């Protein structure tokens, strides 16, 4: 009974984490791009005259999306057309189950592992979920019975499947060092030794690049291609479009969370152990709840940094052409990933 309560609590935290960040990113995207371009950005949405720098904008967006007519083309496949955005959001959300957001927390003498699903093959689960994410896009595009949407779906499948390969290969080097697939163990290993980006700088850069490509956002957005084909969500309006829109942002949070877990020590805080801080000049004991709180905060702050970085990249770099995306994926990122594995293996052999 207690276990169910703990599981529900962790589930609530992860859902609030993913959906909260996903929702607020719609506001962050507008505000950050505005500040980068000497503008002010969305600041008009208000409740009873209360504006708080436009933070009600996501709420206004949500109300707009829900109240708009949800149009379905006459020849569209009713079931799949309606279901596809939900599939898209679902596979973006379930990945969070294996992300560890803290170490062990003791509540009433019971040890609670701050990770919803302690899978020993966490990474493989993440790849499986990321591989399924393309289905929401392709099914939605195909079911709309629109040539431009179909074109967007084809581009999405080609891009996401080719980057899936590089995504898997790019972290092989890191996994060879960690020697485990369990994400919680990976984070603990990084706490005991070094954070991943020190040992695997190339792997980190490759993973971040491929991860951004997986989110289908601007440097890699041929599936949307707003200036040429409107994209796979062409026929969607109202909340159907809203869900695709949200999927992009949840995937952004997802990629940030995975990057932090694999390469930036997850919930690790420098010098913090389970008993408290251990500085080179002394120790500072902390209770278990304070350590857990610091770890969760550390994870959140790191994720927020990577969200900022992805937003900066999205508003700085121009978009790739479709052929450039595929050329970059197959001819550049994949060979470098393979070379990374080879060199990592050689170094490991030499050290042993």
């Amino acid at each position, binding site marked *: 009974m207690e276990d169910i309560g703990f599981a529900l609590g962790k589930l609530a935290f992860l859902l609030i984490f993913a959906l909260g960040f996903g929702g607020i990113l719609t506001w962050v995207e507008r505000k*950050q791009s505005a*500040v*980068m*371009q*000497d*503008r*002010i950005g969305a600041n008009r949405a208000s409740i009873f005259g209360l504006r708080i720098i436009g933070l009600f904008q996501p709420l206004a967006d949500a109300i707009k999306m829900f109240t708009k007519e949800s149009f379905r083309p006459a020849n569209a496949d009713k079931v799949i057309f309606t279901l596809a955005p939900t599939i898209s959001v679902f596979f973006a959300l379930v990945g969070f189950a294996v992300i560890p957001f803290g170490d062990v927390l003791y509540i009433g003498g019971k040890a609670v592992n701050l990770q919803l699903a302690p899978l020993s093959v966490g990474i493989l689960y993440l790849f499986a979920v990321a591989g399924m994410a393309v289905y929401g896009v392709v099914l939605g595009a195909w079911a709309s019975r629109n040539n431009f949407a179909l074109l967007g779906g084809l581009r999405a499948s080609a891009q996401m499947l080719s980057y899936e390969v590089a995504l898997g290969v790019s972290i092989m080097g890191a996994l060879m060092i960690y020697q485990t697939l369990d994400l919680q163990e990976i984070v603990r290993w990084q706490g005991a030794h070094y954070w991943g980006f020190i040992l695997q700088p190339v792997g980190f850069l490759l993973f971040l690049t491929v991860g951004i490509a997986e989110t289908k956002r601007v440097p890699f957005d041929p599936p949307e291609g707003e200036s040429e084909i409107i994209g796979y969500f062409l026929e969607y309006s109202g909340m159907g479009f809203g869900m695709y829109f949200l999927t992009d942002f949840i995937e952004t949070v997802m990629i940030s969370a995975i990057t932090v877990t694999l390469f930036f020590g997850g919930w690790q805080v420098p010098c913090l152990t389970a008993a408290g801080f251990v500085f080179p000049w002394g120790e500072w004991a902390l209770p278990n709840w304070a350590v857990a709180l610091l770890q969760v905060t550390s994870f959140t702050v790191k994720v927020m940094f990577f969200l900022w970085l992805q937003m*900066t990249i999205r508003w*700085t770099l121009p978009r790739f052409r479709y052929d450039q995306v595929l050329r970059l994926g197959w001819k550049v990122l994949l060979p470098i990933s393979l070379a990374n594995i080879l060199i990592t293996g050689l170094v490991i052999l030499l050290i042993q």
Partner: protein
Amino acid sequence: MNVHDKYKPLNFWERTYLPGIFAGLWLTSMRFFRNMAAHTLHAVGIKTKRLGAVTFQYPEVLRPIFPRLRTMHRLTRREDGSPRCVACMMCETVCPARCIYIIADEKPDQPQIEKVPKSFDIDLGLCIFCGYCVEACPEDAIRMDTGILEISNLTRNGMMLDMQTMLKLEPDSRRYVKYNEKGEIVSAEYIEAKGS
């Protein structure tokens, strides 16, 4: 000159595009942090010389306008409040958009003025704001210095501007930029407006 001479071939490091990417990210993120610092300082009430944004929050903060800008028309008045216009039809004749309609009237009790306008209408829906009417007027009776830019209406008839309305209008000095002797802009409202 061969057009290709302008471009020197990229070396290997440049061909990876990584230096370009990092230079771009550096530029945009530095601008982000500089503007965020300015916004934060403004939020706690510290004025900085460099502003975080160039935006005017339009309905609340009006952008200053320059004195030579042609805005909505007004008719000037004599000391007794009657229109200065003598219905000479100069403006109506010169108007390239033909949007001025004057009906003249006699004024027998004032021998120094032969004619006065009975009605003086301008169709703002047709007006192209060229300012020829102001140039043509021999009596300085029509001016375009009200500072009113927000001209809109739901009907075409609503765009008609009649004599009684135009006689009541005054130049709006609040919106005009002010200069000092050196010709620099000194209007405090201008700086305040930009800082908000």
